[in-house]
């Protein structure tokens, strides 16, 4: 295959090499967090973590483990850089997004280190494209300080049920209110729009509810504009976990299966809207 005709010297200088037989296994999951132009890449032995942030209130992370890649070599403990995610996605889908079965784009992603561009070798049907994308100094992602010990309420739902609700959400509402409680209404999504308000209630014994661990009544509001991008991740996922901590911070974790059935994770962290505190 053409990609392997690189000289050994070239290969030696890369501090990170990641290859996929199907580039969609990377591009699909990156689309789920592509609400902003810039993404911070952080590669470790475990795999790749890509972070996108918005206005210091929202953070999305995509995790692609090392074993998803057909080849994954990393020569340092941690490799970090920042790239334009829109450009990266355009390159990954450079052969068009066709889903003709049996035809897929192969990818080899290589990085020389600080100051070097991110190099992508993409091949489909014998045609090879080389893309070099400029990298920037990686910003430090915000630490939302969301740890399991502080979690007050947690539910795990099958995504299908939430997909319906999110597709119907009243967009004229500025906030999405999430109520979680050990008693009725258990788990409720509420909007307050121009025509009136709407509530979506998921009881704890619903068969869509895989896990229900709520310790106290909590109502938090989040800006709709911040949460709207998470719908992309929801669309790809089969399960989602919704957690809030004592400060009202929201963590949404999506379990995504890629084309080959392998599991990746996407998570969103969101700050509550300041006007309404915890009840």
């Amino acid at each position, binding site marked *: 295959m053409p990609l392997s005709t690189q000289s050994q010297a070239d290969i030696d200088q890369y501090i990170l090499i990641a290859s996929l037989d199907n580039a969609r296994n990377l591009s699909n999951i990156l689309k789920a967090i592509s609400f902003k132009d810039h993404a911070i890449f952080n590669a470790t032995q475990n795999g790749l973590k890509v972070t996108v942030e918005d206005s210091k209130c929202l953070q999305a992370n995509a995790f692609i483990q090392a074993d998803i890649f057909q080849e994954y070599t990393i020569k340092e403990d941690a490799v970090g850089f920042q790239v334009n995610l829109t450009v990266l996605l355009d390159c990954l889908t450079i052969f068009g997004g066709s889903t003709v079965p049996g035809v897929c784009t192969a990818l080899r992603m290589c990085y020389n280190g600080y100051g070097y561009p991110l190099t992508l070798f993409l091949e489909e049907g014998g045609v090879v494209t080389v893309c070099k994308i400029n990298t920037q100094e990686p910003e430090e992602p915000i630490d939302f300080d969301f740890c399991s010990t502080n979690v007050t309420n947690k539910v795990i739902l099958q995504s299908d049920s939430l997909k*319906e609700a999110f597709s119907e959400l009243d967009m004229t509402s500025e906030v999405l209110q999430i109520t979680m409680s050990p008693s009725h209404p258990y788990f409720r999504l509420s909007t307050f729009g121009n025509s*009136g*308000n*709407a*509530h979506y209630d*998921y009881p704890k014994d619903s068969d869509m509810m895989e896990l229900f661990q709520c310790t106290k009544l909590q109502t938090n509001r989040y800006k709709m504009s911040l949460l709207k991008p998470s719908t992309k991740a929801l669309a790809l996922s089969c399960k989602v976990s919704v957690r809030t901590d004592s400060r009202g911070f929201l963590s949404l974790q999506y379990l995504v299966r890629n084309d080959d059935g392998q599991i990746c994770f996407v998570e969103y962290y969101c700050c509550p809207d300041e006007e309404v505190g915890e009840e």
Partner: protein
Amino acid sequence: MKCIIEGNGIKVFGKAVHALSRISEEIWLDPLEEGLAVRTVNSSQSAYACFFFTPLFFQQYIPDPDTQKDCEAVKCKLNTKCVLPLFRCVSWRERSVDRCEITIKNPDSRVIFQFHCRHGITKTHNLGYQECEALQAVFPAHLCPNVLKSHSKLLGDIVVHFPISQEEVTLSISSLKVALKTFYEEENSCIKGMNTELMLHPDEFDYFQVGEDSAVTFCLKELRGLLSFAESYGLPVSCHFGVAGQPVSFTVKDMMLEAHVVLSTLTDPDHESPSQSAPGDDCSVTISKTSTVEISTSEGPMEAEVCIADGERVASSQGSEVFHPALHMRKMIQLHAPGEILPRPSLAPESALTTPITPATFKIRSLLFGAVLSDGVDGNTADLPSLVCGSDTEEDGGSEEGHR
């Protein structure tokens, strides 16, 4: 008012809302003893639709849950844009929605649509409403000389030949045939686009009655909603009409519901219908006080309001014992000199329904709706009566609406 719709009924209700949304942006909910009337009228008052659901349609129907006898069921007006999304994706909804509860909560001014879905999920929508007078048009369909009745599929097959953008069509009838064709304004102008004409033999219809050869022109767009509703349920459609200028009504009926669309038709400048005597012209007429449909006018041009006096009962115009169609028909055709002042509600009912002469210019006119896009009428537009009661004022003051 509180009602519960189950299973397939939700889909039917959703389709009714879709059909109504083709006509206007507002929906009037009127909970009556006999059932729930959901009505709409377009802004120029040239199209009116009413879907009337009998208690059989519902799993439960309580028009007025308030135990106080004095408290009437609240009539309210909703924005279609708010209601339509709740019934969107109807086919999907049919699979996942088990039950829909609609409640009108008077003290909060909210209509609550609550959907109980599979997996125990509940979706509750609280919509604000405007309280208003009932909207109602009375149309003596059984006095129409021409009646066509056919399966909805036939009408659907006919209408599909007209492009969606086609506004007006002309339906003409004679003892030999029925024709539906594209309507275009000037006879001699070059034909723009495609014109279509379909002719049908009377045998094609399940029921064919021609009392008077005529050709009526009406807006097809507003009818499509009802036709697609009828086609979904395979219901027959009846069409009642008279001569040009008189409204045309389309009705779909089954045990559980009744849907009407009444459309105004263009006046034909060649024969002003006035001097013809209408059937029932010579009937002696009595109107019981409770049935009075009083008419008053509003300040604005082209708008006329009708107040329903207390005790209004008529949900369907046909065969109602309190509504005497003969009078209305006769009065509608009677023409008086322009400038006649229309009565205030306190005047005797008989004088309520007069229509001044309108000049013989080609314009959309409806005897029922009184909305005239007139070029030549000087200052008379405000005097035209309307039998459609649509009160849009913010203060809802019961039947005092008309007092200006």
